């Protein structure tokens, strides 16, 4: 029985290792910055998730006590990772994309990052 549990834990660990590796390999292989942004989302979902599943399985089935604060790591990752990705993406749009390169924003005409830039084009008050 212990052997099967250990096999299960090893499976989760190897799975997370593979997905973590693919995530970092993607950072090298993908050439454009926006595509590179996709690689970390892989590492934070199944990559970390595998380690956490292995940890929960180990504590519940081998040590015989319920340990769930691994779930918190998932929760905090799900709260912080999208915000980081959004910041990097907005920086990229701000520095490298013109409004005409992006798809049409429909009735709003501009995407928020570009719209803010327009507002910033107020007369220069720094002279005096």
């Amino acid at each position, binding site marked *: 029985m212990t052997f099967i549990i250990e096999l299960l834990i090893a499976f989760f660990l190897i799975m997370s290792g593979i997905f973590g590796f693919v995530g970092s390999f993607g950072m090298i292989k*993908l*050439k454009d910055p926006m595509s590179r942004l996709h690689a970390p989302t892989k590492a934070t979902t199944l990559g970390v998730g595998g380690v956490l599943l292995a940890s929960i399985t180990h504590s519940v089935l081998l040590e015989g006590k319920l340990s769930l*604060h691994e779930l918190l790591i998932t929760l905090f990752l799900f709260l912080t990772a999208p915000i980081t990705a959004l910041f990097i993406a907005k920086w*990229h749009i701000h520095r490298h994309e013109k409004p005409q390169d*992006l798809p049409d924003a429909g009735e709003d005409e*501009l995407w928020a990052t570009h719209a803010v830039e327009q507002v910033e084009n107020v007369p220069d008050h720094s002279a005096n």
Partner: protein
Amino acid sequence: MKLLHRIFPHPHLTFLLTFVWVLLANNGSLNSLVFGLILGIIIPFITQPYWPDRPKLRNWPMVVEYMLVVLWDIVVANVTVARIILFKRDADRQPNWICVPLELRTPEAITVLAGTITMTPGTVSCDLSAQGHNLLVHCLDAPNPEEVRDQIKQRYERRLKEIFE
């Protein structure tokens, strides 16, 4: 009832804070539960001015269904993206911007949708349109942008609409 509302201005937040504290302590003792409850009462009370109109969750079974759908999609998309990274030549890949017109209007619902899109490998939500009517999504490999857009609307937005609006 009014007194109860004053002590618990945000019952969901109270529950969440208590839950997180108990998990952080990780021993399930009465001590951590009581202290978590104290935090769960004090923090919503102090931060009350920051929650002018809090969203009402209308459909709790749908919340569970949504979480399961997202988890399943994350597993499936991880495998798909791993295959793209490992076996697809970089020249064959078609990265693409997609504009997703939003039917959601609640800021909280849009936040959850954007977060979900980012956490699902293969898509990253990058920007909102100036008035918040469209969402800009970047796809790692999308030969068929309409399909991705329809899937986002079908799988996530429809369910979020039932939860929040």
